[in-house]
């Protein structure tokens, strides 16, 4: 399955991309004392485009594994009980696997290899879903998918960091978020069409097949340009006495934990909002409900694709905090709008705010984690910590929203979610420090209004 990781594709798209040798070598020989001011790496065009499309196709593949699984299993004559069990086990694995997944990526010498293996495993699990929808196979496939995703997420972040370094990370993450959003949006539309005109099973076949172009795109990324040390956040200045001690410093741990807690609140509010709104749409508008829900899924992705490069650049120019505040502020507003708006078409417009939060979420989560883990060698483990917090928030979200909406109606549920989101916003506002390192502040910016953007 992993054969296509062959180092170079003959006839790559960019005819000449020159300086790969130059890019990979130098920083390691430098004394690591120079903080983050290493000479910026110069990854080749082929690698950068390869990463673009890798992110795109991975987003394609992952879209098939959403709530659609339960539609598919229902149509394969599964009982709701069994579907619930399988999905719960899958999400538990996805939750518990975050930190080990990150630690694995920190430990391996080749991010590309682990990324390839996990994409292949995810493709295999899609295939298992498609050809063999019986209990044990589906359970195995969903565990396999969850575990592989725990590795794939950090591996993509690590490849990005290893290619471009901290200095180029905000711009790179903006690009990643753009391609992921396009991939998600296109895949959701295509899979909707596929399920409608072909069959639900065909959706998983397509998902499995999309693994191929993902691997091809990955093969365009030149392994020599991914500096493993850089990909793990850079090595500590002196070798740590105890494992993890480079990460376990108050100056790093505190912002990481505040950040993770804020995003836990964010997901606690965010995760259930779209499904709940979809259910309200189904209740209010019979004929167009499915189309409106499809629009609610796809349209915010288009907005994410449009603005995330801007988010990446602004994060570099004005710092992380103003953008975090922007993304967090969009969420309570959306919750309140969902509670008060009754016109289905206007609801779709309010859903655009999801694109704002989504772009901030996609860019700033890996970016801030990369900020606080500089020179720790534990970038990906820290991503796993944040990912666990986000996962906890997401899995409690449906329960919370379902409970409130059963007992007090969906309007109240939206208000409660908005209140949770407001708590997350308050957490960022009052506790979260600016994490942009001083040496990345643009030279022309004289005064350091680090937290003034609020």
């Amino acid at each position, binding site marked *: 399955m992993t054969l296509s990781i062959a180092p170079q594709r003959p006839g790559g798209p960019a005819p000449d991309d020159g300086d790969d040798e130059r890019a990979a070598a130098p920083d390691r020989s430098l004394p690591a004392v120079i903080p983050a001011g290493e000479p910026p790496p110069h990854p080749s065009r082929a690698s950068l485009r390869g990463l673009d499309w890798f992110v795109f196709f991975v987003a394609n593949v992952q879209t098939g594994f*959403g*709530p*659609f*699984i*339960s*539609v598919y299993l*229902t*149509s*394969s*004559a*599964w*009982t*709701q*009980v069994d*579907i*619930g*069990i399988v*999905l*719960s086990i*899958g*999400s538990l694995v996805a939750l518990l696997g975050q930190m080990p997944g990150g630690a694995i990526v920190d430990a391996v010498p080749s991010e590309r290899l682990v990324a390839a293996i996990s994409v292949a495993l995810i493709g295999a699990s899609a295939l298992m879903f498609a050809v063999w929808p019986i209990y044990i196979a589906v359970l195995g496939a969903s565990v396999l998918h969850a575990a592989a995703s725990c590795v794939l997420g950090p591996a993509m972040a690590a490849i990005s960091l290893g290619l471009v370094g901290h200095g180029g990370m905000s711009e790179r993450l903006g690009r990643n978020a753009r391609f992921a959003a396009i991939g998600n949006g296109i895949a*959701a539309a295509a*899979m*909707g069409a596929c*399920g409608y005109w072909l069959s639900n099973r065909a959706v998983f076949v397509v998902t499995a097949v999309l693994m191929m172009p993902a691997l091809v795109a990955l093969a365009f990324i030149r392994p020599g340009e991914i500096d493993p040390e850089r990909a793990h956040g850079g090595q500590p200045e002196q070798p740590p006495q105890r494992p993890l001690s480079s990460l376990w410093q108050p100056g790093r741990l505190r912002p990481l934990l505040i950040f993770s807690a804020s995003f836990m609140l964010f997901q606690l509010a965010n*995760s*259930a909002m*779209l*499904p709940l*709104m*979809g*259910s*309200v*749409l*189904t*209740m*209010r*508008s*019979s*004929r*167009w*409900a*499915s*189309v409106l*829900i*499809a629009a609610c*899924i796809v349209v915010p992705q288009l907005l994410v694709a449009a603005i995330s490069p801007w988010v990446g650049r602004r994060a570099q120019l004005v710092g992380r905090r103003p953008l975090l505040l922007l993304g967090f502020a969009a969420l309570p507003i959306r919750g309140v709008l969902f509670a008060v708006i*009754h*016109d*289905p078409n206007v609801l779709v417009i309010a859903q655009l705010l999801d694109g704002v939060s989504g772009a901030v979420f996609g860019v700033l989560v890996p970016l801030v984690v990369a900020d606080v883990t500089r020179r720790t060698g534990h970038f990906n483990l820290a991503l796993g910590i944040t990912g666990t917090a986000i996962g906890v928030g*997401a*899995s409690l*979200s*449906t*329960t919370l929203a*379902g409970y409130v909406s*059963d007992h007090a109606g969906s309007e109240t549920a939206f208000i409660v979610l908005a209140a949770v989101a407001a708590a997350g916003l308050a957490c960022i506002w009052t506790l979260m420090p600016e994490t942009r390192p001083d040496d990345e502040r643009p030279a022309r910016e004289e005064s350091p209004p680090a937290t003034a953007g609020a």
Partner: protein
Amino acid sequence: MHGHSRWAAALVAAAVIVAMAPPASARSRHRGHRANRANPATQPAQVPSSGMRSNDESSRKMSEVANTGKAGWPLALGVNDAEAILGKNVHSSTGEDMGRLVDVVVDIDGRPRAAIIDFGGFLGVGSRKIAVDWSVLKFAPNDPKGNVISVTLTRDQVKAAPEFKEGSPVVALGASASPPPAPAAPPQAQEK
């Protein structure tokens, strides 16, 4: 995101018993389910308390077998007499897609009283589980066009039905007003 885990099996018997269970044994002993607005004598259409999957064995073309046979012998049903229904699409009489049948609610005597339909949504987002009275369902086993299950309700009637919840009383739609249907589900029938 996966809230399905609460689907404990407490009150609801899953509709499909794979292959050939003697009908007498397919009685559910669960108590306490009442399809509230159902007329008590719901006529279970052709298939009594359990759906039978018989089309696997195409050799058994026994179309005349009485499916209410009392004998304790294996029951054979012809391909045009019965079909498994769990997960099958449900259509309205005008051909609208009404979602999928995901569960069947039976009463203390094992008679089916309501079907749970997963209605609406896109790729699994925003669908609602709704109970419809068993008597509004029509079955056409192995229908050539694939319309195995149809229901004499429209999307507009079904959309605002209360969501089916495990462990709370089942409010099933239908039955009360038959042909010119205006069964007036709960109050929210506003927009559209």
